[in-house]
């Protein structure tokens, strides 16, 4: 037992000196364990009172007053009691500050919430009467060591990403590089396609027969040709042979005239 426990407050269960962290105030060992019970009790009392609305409406203030200096007289008695313990008398009694309003507000909120939770659980009688304990356990020093393990893992993964290989990979497969490559590819393809659809010069080809069908179809200025120009470009003899089966006339002159009279541009195109 330490010095303070020998000489001070050991009759007060709410004033423990087990806390050695520089703060002389402790808590009853079961404070947090019994906290929920206290809340449940409070709730029970409230529910009891709910049946008596009139009584509930009366503020629960103390109407009794104390004689002046009542507690200071007690204090004198207390000091007398302490006289056999001079060392204890030298310990300054703690002066408690008034609680901060924010703390009181939060405490109220927290109590209300506890009550709400308890209320909610009341509908499930088995669960309500069950002790809400965490049945899972961890090794004694787990939480002291886990932080260092996590940090180690994070730093090691971080180190890996700054290696030269990763930097190069990141550069090659990085978002910016991918975007740049995409833009270059789109521009390149557009230029290539534009070049490939450029109209072919017709100066070297006097007749349509020397042109590939596909070239003719792809030729953008094809539709701009007038009928006379088209007729000039067509090899009549070849065309004649192709039309032989459908036409009865053999005379080439007649044939030519027939073609000129009866075959229009569309039919010619179709034949080609």
């Amino acid at each position, binding site marked *: 037992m330490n010095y303070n426990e020998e000489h001070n407050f050991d009759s007060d269960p709410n004033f423990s000196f087990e806390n050695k962290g520089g703060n002389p105030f402790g808590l009853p060992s079961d404070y947090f364990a019994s906290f929920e019970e206290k809340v449940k009790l409070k709730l029970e009392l409230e529910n009891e009172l709910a049946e008596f609305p009139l009584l509930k409406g009366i503020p629960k203030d103390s109407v009794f007053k104390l004689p002046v200096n009542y507690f200071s007289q007690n204090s004198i008695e207390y000091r007398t009691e302490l006289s056999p313990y001079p060392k204890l008398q030298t310990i300054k009694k703690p002066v408690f500050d008034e609680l901060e309003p924010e703390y009181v507000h939060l405490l109220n909120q927290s109590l209300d919430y506890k009550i709400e939770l308890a209320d909610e659980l009341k509908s499930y009688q088995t669960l309500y009467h069950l002790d809400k304990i965490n*049945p899972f*356990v961890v090794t004694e020093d787990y939480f002291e060591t*886990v932080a260092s393990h996590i940090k180690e893992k994070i730093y090691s993964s971080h180190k890996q990403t700054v290696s030269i290989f990763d930097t190069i990979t990141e550069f090659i497969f990085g978002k910016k590089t991918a975007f740049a490559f995409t833009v270059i590819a789109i521009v390149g393809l557009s230029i290539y396609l534009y070049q490939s659809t450029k109209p072919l010069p017709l100066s070297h080809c006097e007749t349509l027969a020397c042109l590939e069908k596909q070239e003719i179809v792809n030729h953008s200025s094809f539709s701009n040709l007038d009928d006379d120009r088209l007729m000039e470009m067509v090899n009549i003899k070849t065309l004649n042979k192709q039309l032989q089966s459908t036409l009865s006339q053999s005379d080439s002159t007649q044939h030519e005239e027939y073609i000129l009279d009866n075959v229009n541009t569309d039919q010619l195109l179709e034949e080609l």
Partner: protein
Amino acid sequence: MQHYSDEEILTLFRSEESRNMALHHLIQKYQQKLYWHIRKIVISHDDTDDVLQNTFIKVWKGLNNFKEESQLYTWLYRIATNESLTFLKQKARANTTSIHPIEYQLSKSLESDTFFSGDEIQLKLQNAILTLPEKQRLVFNMRYYDEMPYEQMSEVLETSVGALKASYHIAAKKIEDFLINR
């Protein structure tokens, strides 16, 4: 131990010099909360340890992109939840030898778990929780054990408050039935 506020941790993180300190405070502040949240989902301590580490790694890598539209706490919970569920799915996929669903396997592992200190009724409660569908299990654990407000839970699970209340009610009812009838 006095924990730093989320704002303080984020401020530390934004500066290159204090980034490591931010990591330290982040882990110190949230390791226990996240551990117990994950533990109730994946059950085994070793699995929880893995998932917890992965969660913090993911958090650390993603903290740069954290938009502060939600609270840091709910963001961390969301990542931990997703990591845990992904882990369970991977575990179920990897375990091709068993014909039983993952919940049954978790229940069996609970019985032989040396890091489980509950008595018979606690074991029964855990088994009852493990019979619930994934979402109901999450909601029940978060409400019953973590006592999380529905509004916060709604942010974590991206579900409406009404749906969460209904889920909790159904889950609690099923657990009651399990505890009484089995």
